[in-house]
């Protein structure tokens, strides 16, 4: 079987996007209500709406298993909604719904990624959901019984009274999936009218009903304040070929019903209680849509494919390169061009505005990845039997979308690590150490000078430096005598590849891959991670990531034939020196003393093996750069000038070589078409 119905491929993306969003919303509501330990009416309605939409769109896409799953979830919440005051013990509902939403997500991921996608069999969870629904029903017996009574397809309630209207709708020949179109039409109509009945009544769950609709039309009975408006909706609905009003003589619909009943009865056998409850559900939905339309109005948000944004972003990058190609064109050198200079300034202003705007489009708040951690903490709390609270701060901090996407995994790993290894095993242990019984994991984000700082901290055991050191020694990770390591260096060893302090592999962390993967992931987006910990007081992971990857302010320096870009943010100052300021140490190292501080000097031509005539310090220039509280002086031939550059990654062909460790973060195309290499200050300092 093909993945989706032919002609629907384009909609799969939209479906995935929408459904994922809805499921996240669902998780959020569930977590919130679980914490408050009560369902507000709004929440229930919202959940119901989510389930309903998911069900509808899954059916539309032909994912029957997902549709059924959502259907069962909807059933359960229908019961809860009808009897909110009676539903007291709902903890099992949470587990069920969380399970369901996880399965849903996994399935959607499969749809997204697997070409030969096979629908998963959800019968187990469906059974669980059915049992859950039954349990709820048991607690709230009376109305449920009423509902199931109405489920008998005999139609005792077909007589709706005088003020209702019945319409028979025919769809265009060959428009396919008539039943779903009918279902969508119903949803539309609910905005205008109260739907009393429709035949066949199993359009959403029974594909066979499509044939019934083709033969007999889709018969809707509704009651509305304004019939015309309703008919208008029907007329304008997609693929509706014609409709007729079978007027409100009470017998007519009944007769119709009887007639259609036979056709519908056979395939309808499998459709249980749910549709019977439809009319009642409709009333509620109606009330809700009213609320919504008053608040909603026009949509001011659109969703855009990320690849289009990437494209836009690339073009802006090209524009900036081209701009400097024009403005700093060598042919202009020495000319006095007043109006050109003015126009160039104007252009510069506009391009930087354009760049800022494009950047801001790509910025998304960290709330998404942060909220996901709620789920992880919740699940692990139960499994590990630890009492932990997750605190979230600064979730509105915004970061480039491409970075956020890469943050999910590292954050998850860190939070899991905190839960698993950080927090004490028992609350008794905590209390004995004078801490509150409930542990706290804090997830915080803030902006700081072109960087976003994210911290993941716990108030648990902290890192035992001695253990870490011993382990590092055992794994052969030490590069100098163990007594020369500072506390900070030792703690950061847990981020090294091949290090994992916990001997026992658990379900959540310590699979051997460990923290170095986190580190790799964060470095992939140009960030850094460090760890601070006090034994017995807790551990804090500090992640620093750039606001955006693509464009940086750089200082262009020349070394022999090559040009390098040093990020302006790292440069403290640049200056010339005289030879008598240079201090030589015993190992051929060169240093310079400034304001009482001694800085090592790194000759760029030595570092990168370049030919240059300028080897005497007095002929060149020194740049003092700083990162991570460490500083080094770079020696270059000359400064060329300050420039905004578009960072390009090294070609994929070179990805096997660790160029980043050589102290280069990427490259950029300069105005004259040559390529300059961008210096990665952290690694360069680290190398020294």
């Amino acid at each position: 079987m093909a993945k989706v119905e032919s002609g629907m491929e384009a909609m799969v993306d939209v479906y995935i996007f929408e459904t994922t969003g809805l499921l996240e919303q669902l998780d959020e509501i569930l977590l919130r209500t679980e914490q408050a330990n009560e369902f507000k009416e709004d929440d229930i309605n919202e959940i119901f709406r989510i389930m309903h939409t998911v069900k509808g769109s899954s059916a539309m896409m032909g994912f029957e298993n997902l549709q059924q799953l959502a259907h069962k979830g909807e059933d359960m919440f229908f019961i809860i909604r009808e009897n909110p005051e009676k539903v007291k013990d709902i903890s099992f509902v949470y587990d069920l719904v969380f399970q369901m939403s996880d399965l849903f997500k996994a399935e959607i991921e499969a749809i997204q990624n697997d070409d030969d996608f096979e629908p998963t069999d959800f019968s187990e969870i469906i059974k669980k959901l059915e049992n859950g629904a039954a349990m709820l029903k048991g607690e709230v017996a009376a109305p449920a019984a009423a509902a199931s009574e109405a489920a008998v397809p005999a139609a005792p309630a077909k007589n709706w009274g005088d003020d209702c209207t019945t319409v028979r709708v025919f769809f265009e020949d060959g428009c396919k999936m008539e039943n779903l179109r009918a279902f969508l039409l119903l949803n539309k109509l609910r905005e205008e009218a109260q739907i009393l009945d429709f035949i066949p009544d199993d359009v959403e769950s029974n594909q066979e009903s499509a044939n019934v609709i083709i033969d007999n039309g889709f018969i809707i009975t509704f009651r509305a304040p304004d019939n015309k408006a309703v008919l208008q909706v029907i007329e304008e609905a997609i693929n509706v070929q014609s409709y007729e009003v079978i007027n409100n003589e009470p017998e007519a619909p009944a007769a119709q019903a009887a007639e259609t009943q036979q056709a519908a009865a056979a395939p309808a056998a499998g459709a249980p209680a749910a549709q019977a409850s439809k009319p009642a559900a409709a009333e509620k939905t109606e009330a809700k849509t009213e609320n919504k339309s008053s608040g909603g109005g026009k949509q001011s948000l659109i969703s855009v494919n990320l690849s289009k944004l990437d494209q836009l972003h690339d073009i802006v990058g090209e524009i900036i390169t081209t701009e400097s190609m024009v403005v700093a064109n060598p042919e202009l050198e020495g000319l006095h061009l007043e109006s050109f200079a003015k126009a160039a300034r104007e252009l510069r202003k506009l391009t930087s505005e354009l760049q800022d705007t494009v950047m801001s489009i790509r910025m998304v708040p960290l709330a998404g990845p942060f909220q996901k951690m709620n789920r992880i903490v919740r699940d692990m709390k139960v499994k590990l039997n630890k009492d932990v609270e997750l605190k979230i701060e600064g979730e509105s901090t915004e970061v480039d979308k491409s970075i956020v996407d890469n943050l999910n995994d590292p954050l998850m790993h860190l939070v899991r690590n905190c839960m698993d290894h950080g927090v004490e095993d028992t609350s008794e242990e905590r209390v004995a150490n004078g801490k509150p019984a409930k542990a706290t994991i804090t997830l915080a984000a803030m902006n700081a000078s072109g960087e976003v700082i994210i911290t993941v901290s716990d108030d648990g055991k902290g890192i035992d430096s001695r253990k870490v050191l011993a382990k590092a020694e055992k794994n052969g990770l030490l590069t100098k005598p163990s007594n020369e390591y500072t506390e900070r260096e030792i703690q950061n060893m847990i981020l090294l590849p091949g290090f994992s302090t916990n001997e026992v592999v658990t379900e959540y962390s310590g699979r051997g891959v460990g923290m170095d993967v986190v580190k790799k992931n964060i470095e992939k987006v140009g960030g850094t991670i460090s760890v601070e910990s006090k034994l017995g007081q807790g551990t804090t992971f500090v992640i620093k990531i750039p606001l955006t990857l693509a464009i940086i302010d750089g200082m262009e320096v020349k070394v022999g034939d090559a040009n390098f870009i040093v990020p302006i943010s790292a440069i403290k100052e640049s200056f010339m020196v005289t030879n008598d300021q240079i201090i030589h140490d015993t190992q051929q190292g060169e240093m310079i003393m400034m304001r009482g501080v001694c800085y090592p000097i790194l000759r760029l031509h030595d570092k990168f093996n370049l030919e240059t005539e300028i080897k005497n310090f007095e002929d060149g220039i020194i740049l003092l750069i700083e990162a991570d509280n460490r500083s080094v002086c770079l020696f270059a031939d000359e400064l060329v000038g300050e420039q905004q550059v578009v960072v390009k990654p090294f070609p994929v062909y070179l990805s096997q070589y660790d160029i980043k460790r050589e102290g280069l973060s990427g490259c950029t195309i300069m105005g004259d078409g040559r390529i300059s290499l961008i210096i990665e200050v952290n690694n360069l300092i680290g190398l020294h």
Partner: protein
Amino acid sequence: MAMDFKELLAKQAEMMKSTTEAKSEVEREITKVLTFSIGEQIYGIEIPNVVEIIGVPHITTVPGVPDYIKGIINVRSKVVPVVNIRSRFGKEEIPYNDRSSIIIVSSEDIQVGIIVDQIRDVIPVKERHIAKSPDHIGVNNNKFIKYLLEMSDGIKLVLDVNKLVYENEAVVD
């Protein structure tokens, strides 16, 4: 080498025998090959893999890579790595002159520039020209050769661009 030749011819004869197709089928042009020279030897690259041919521009060297990767160049706003095919094949590098060219080849999304001594020609390839590269030809460079072309003016080695472009990835795993 002469022995190899005989074997080659024998193989080719066998191939022709085994093809039951009409002779016209054998004469059909299957692809075109861009030929270039490195020293005395003529090599070729199938045209579909060739993106463009440029002169040797300023090459920005990159640290931490093998010697045969000369660095990166800017090809119409794309950063493309360049490989000197001489040193890749274990030959001595010669200084670039005005006949030196870079052939930009691509395989799927990856582009790589190849520095060659001189561009020769584009020649049509017919099935009868092709001899499958036997396992023992050119011990070192064998893995990059897709097949041999036997033309009236000598043997041409057609390179396997996929292997050239993806060799690095293969090493990683």
